[in-house]
């Protein structure tokens, strides 16, 4: 067990991936600039411009080139600096990466890992979005959004070993988060959720950065004797609800916390599955805590009210618990 940050865990994962000669990393400002969030800092010096490829500002191009290379036997890692820019590559991701295996009769596949970041910090409307539900909606993609350094490493290993396209969602506000990382080459399988904290009274179903806020909320409520159970989905497609449903059958109450807009966001599918499969165990409507549904404002006083906070999670839990 070593303690490291999310950034360090990802660096370890990327260095491991680069041990495979077929792997190269392509993205914007990952080399000469030194990496926007520092994850690939030093990689250009270590691996050279052939395997650490600074790309033009052309997101469709980056994905398209990576998809083609993947088809022809390479194991590319495509980095899209911010998920907000991935919209420029949606045709590549959805019409190509996700379709090629099935559309051509399963004769070849696209072993591609696309790393990208959610996040916000007064960056205004076009730099603060998350499109989790859009990626997770697409058959042919596998979509992961880990929360801890250990899961980042374990799921990245699984993603690189996977012959299908994987969307690997990181978060700009998580790179500095520390956590214990097991030694050895353990792998966290894609499509497996996990119990992140045990509790008896209510279940919080969440993933990515929200897992950490859920724990803070649980700590606060623990002081009042309220025991919150937290389920970390870790993967959005396929969506493994088994752990959440087990928990729900015990607590009969749930709050779904996701860092995206509520309507048609990931919390809708997660909540619906809880209702569908946990129907007979329902004691109260499930509360959803998400971004307020507005383009993200720059002004701090407004941004603070749009994003999900520990306070809002606590309030949601109280609301569900106090409904009789």
């Amino acid at each position, binding site marked *: 067990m070593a303690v490291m940050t999310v950034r360090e865990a990802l660096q370890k994962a990327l260095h491991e991936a680069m041990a495979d000669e077929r792997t190269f990393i392509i993205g914007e400002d990952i080399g000469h600039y030194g990496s926007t969030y520092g994850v690939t800092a030093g990689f250009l010096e270590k691996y050279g411009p052939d395997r650490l490829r600074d790309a033009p500002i052309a997101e469709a191009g980056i994905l398209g080139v990576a998809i083609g290379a993947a088809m022809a036997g390479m194991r590319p890692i495509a980095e899209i600096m911010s998920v907000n820019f991935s919209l420029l590559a949606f045709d590549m991701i959805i019409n190509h990466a996700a379709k090629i295996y099935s559309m051509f009769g399963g004769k070849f596949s696209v072993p591609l890992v696309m790393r990208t970041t959610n996040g916000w910090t007064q960056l205004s409307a076009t730099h603060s979005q998350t499109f989790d539900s859009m990626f997770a909606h697409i058959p042919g993609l596998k979509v992961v959004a880990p929360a801890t350094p250990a899961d980042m490493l374990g799921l990245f290993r699984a993603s690189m070993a996977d012959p299908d396209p994987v969307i690997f969602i990181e978060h700009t506000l998580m790179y500095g988060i520390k956590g214990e990382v097991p030694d050895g080459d353990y792998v966290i399988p894609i499509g*497996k959720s996990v119990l992140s904290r045990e509790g008896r009274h209510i279940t919080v179903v969440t993933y990515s950065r929200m897992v950490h806020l859920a724990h803070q909320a649980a700590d606060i409520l623990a002081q009042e004797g309220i025991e919150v159970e937290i389920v970390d989905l870790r993967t959005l497609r396929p969506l493994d609800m088994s752990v959440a449903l087990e928990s729900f059958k015990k607590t009969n109450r749930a709050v779904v916390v996701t860092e995206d807009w509520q309507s048609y966001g990931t919390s809708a599918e997660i909540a619906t599955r809880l209702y569908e499969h946990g129907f007979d165990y329902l004691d109260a409507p499930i509360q959803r805590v998400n971004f307020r549904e507005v383009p993200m404002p720059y002004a701090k006083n407004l941004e603070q009210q749009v994003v999900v906070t520990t306070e809002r999670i606590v309030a949601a839990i109280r609301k569900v618990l106090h409904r009789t």
Partner: protein
Amino acid sequence: MQKRRGATSAGAPATSSLRSTMSSTPLSRARKELGDAHLVELYRQMMLIRRFEEKCQEMYTRSKIGGFLHLYVGEEATGVGAISNLQPQDHIFTHYRDHGHAIARGLDINALMAELFGRDTGSGRGLGGSMHFADVTKNFWGGYAIVGSHLLLAVGVGLACQMQKTNGVVMVFFGDGATNGGEFYEALNFAQLWKLPVVFVCENNLYAMGTPLEVHSAVTEIYRKASAFDMKAMRIDGNDVLEVREQVGEAVDYARSGKGPVLVEAMTYRFRGHSAQDTQKYRSKEDVEQHRQQDPVMRFRQSLIDVGVQTAAEIDALDAVIDEQVEESVRFADESPVPGNEWLTDQGIYAAPLETPTVDPNII
């Protein structure tokens, strides 16, 4: 078409010096260089494409084939001439108008007809249909139906060739209409920036669906768009299979030598509608008729007879064999089973299905 014929070069003077010719290569010279057997093979491929597609049209009318059907009729010389320069380790990408390229690359027409019929024996197990012929064993990476996007995939395979040092070249086909979308330019920049072995072959048939070239593109000499990237480029007569073979051959050699990509603009013409739905109100019957007079397949057929490469009888016999093969492909397709329901499960979507299914097994 006259004014559009002949090869020209573009891009920065220094890097675009493919020799310029106004006349197509004399058949006599081609006999010496390639040998008669090869000439006959070029003809055979063109005629096989022609007959195969005429049959496709028939089967479409009889509802044996569904979806969209984009025929290559009239453009055969471009695909056959260009692909005749490729080696087994080379790669091909194309668009939805892919029948000709697939046949020129030697894909089994039984598997192709079966694909059109939506059968399990199809080149894509019946999953793709007319727009998505592929055969990975021949590095034929398939037809793609999103205009322009596949150029970037081709560049990616070009990068793989370079990094894997396979000495392979990637040839990608697309239309004039595909040269206005951003992907085209992003692809050319990546290819030239990294000097990738990619030959971009634009089949300029003067229309994007029903929109005339001059209505959709500020520059109508497509090859000149390469100048924004200092990329070698050429414009050729896509209806003369021997000129196509020779000129594209130079482009392929150039790319293989590591000098970088080339943009080839092949001037050609589509005899049929854009797809089976097309009413063709955007062009006159006379216009089409005039081009049919220049039918690249029939012209080449006649010239082979004229110079004595084949007797009329020999070619008739060859045509008969082709007809029989096409008939056989229909029988094969008709008798083939449809694809199974495993395609409706994770097994059909993922090379590595996961323990947690993405497709609800209990779906109503």
